[in-house]
């Protein structure tokens, strides 16, 4: 059984869309259809790049700790130099900054999608 609230909320007269509403929508649809498809994010390249970076970082960090005879003294010393240079130049913080920027852009895209 209907009460006064049902009556007020249920008896609302519908509004009419503007005369050119459908035309405006179809114009937007055609523009959308004509627009080139968005360039997909290069996930594959990113994965390959990240994996390569990880391997190099691991090599630079871990290999100098092995016996220098196994690696060859010169090579081991060079790795140590690279390691020191990366640490000294703040490469870690640069990489971390890049990662945080990337994640924040992805997050904002997700929330506005």
């Amino acid at each position, binding site marked *: 059984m209907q009460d006064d*609230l049902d*009556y007020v909320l249920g008896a609302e007269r*519908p*509004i009419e869309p503007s005369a050119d*509403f459908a035309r405006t929508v179809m114009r937007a*649809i055609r523009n959308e259809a004509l627009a080139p498809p968005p360039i997909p994010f290069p996930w594959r390249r990113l994965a390959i790049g990240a994996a390569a970076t990880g391997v190099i970082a691991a090599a630079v960090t871990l290999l100098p700790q092995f016996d220098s005879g196994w690696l060859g003294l010169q090579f081991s010393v060079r790795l140590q130099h690279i390691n020191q240079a990366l640490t000294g130049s703040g490469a870690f913080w640069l990489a971390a900054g890049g990662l945080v920027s990337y994640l924040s852009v992805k997050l904002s895209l997700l929330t506005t999608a």
Partner: protein
Amino acid sequence: MGAHTGHDEDARDVQQVLAGDINTYANIVGRWQGPIVNLAYRFCREQGLAEEIAQDVFLKAFRALGSWRQESKFSTWLYALALNLCRSRMRRWRPDLRPLEEAGEIADLNLTDDRIARAEEAEIVRRMVLQLPGKYREAIVLFYFHDMNLAEAAASLKIPEGTLKARLHRGRALLRKKIDGSPGLSLSMGVA
């Protein structure tokens, strides 16, 4: 409002659009522009904004047309999409609600045309719905939008009917409390 037939027409038009005939999408827009604009209007009570939201709904539906599984009605799918867009727009936008104190002024206007006064009261009550917490607001808007069809409203909200019933009950109680707390506002039958 929500009682729309044409499931077969929708399915056929969707197939044609997906096959590349974009112009057929005009049939879908033509068939659903009224319901979608009206649904959006009930969430914002501004025709301009309602049409903006409805345009976004049709654009989003066009992009996602391939994801409509035909087990559900096209209207259910489209309303769920519209509801999502209304939700996100309402999060960033607050309706320009008439202060509740004005409800008292309406009673003092002593309008000769009783119908105008009743219509204004009804509009205030409908705007009060927008002040309810989201889940109650959506339950009430969808239930009355679908001509009080519980099953269709629950399907659009993607919740069980029992949950919808509970939200309606609580939402109506909150609304009734707001109305009772507004001096000079009394619900009367025969509203325009």
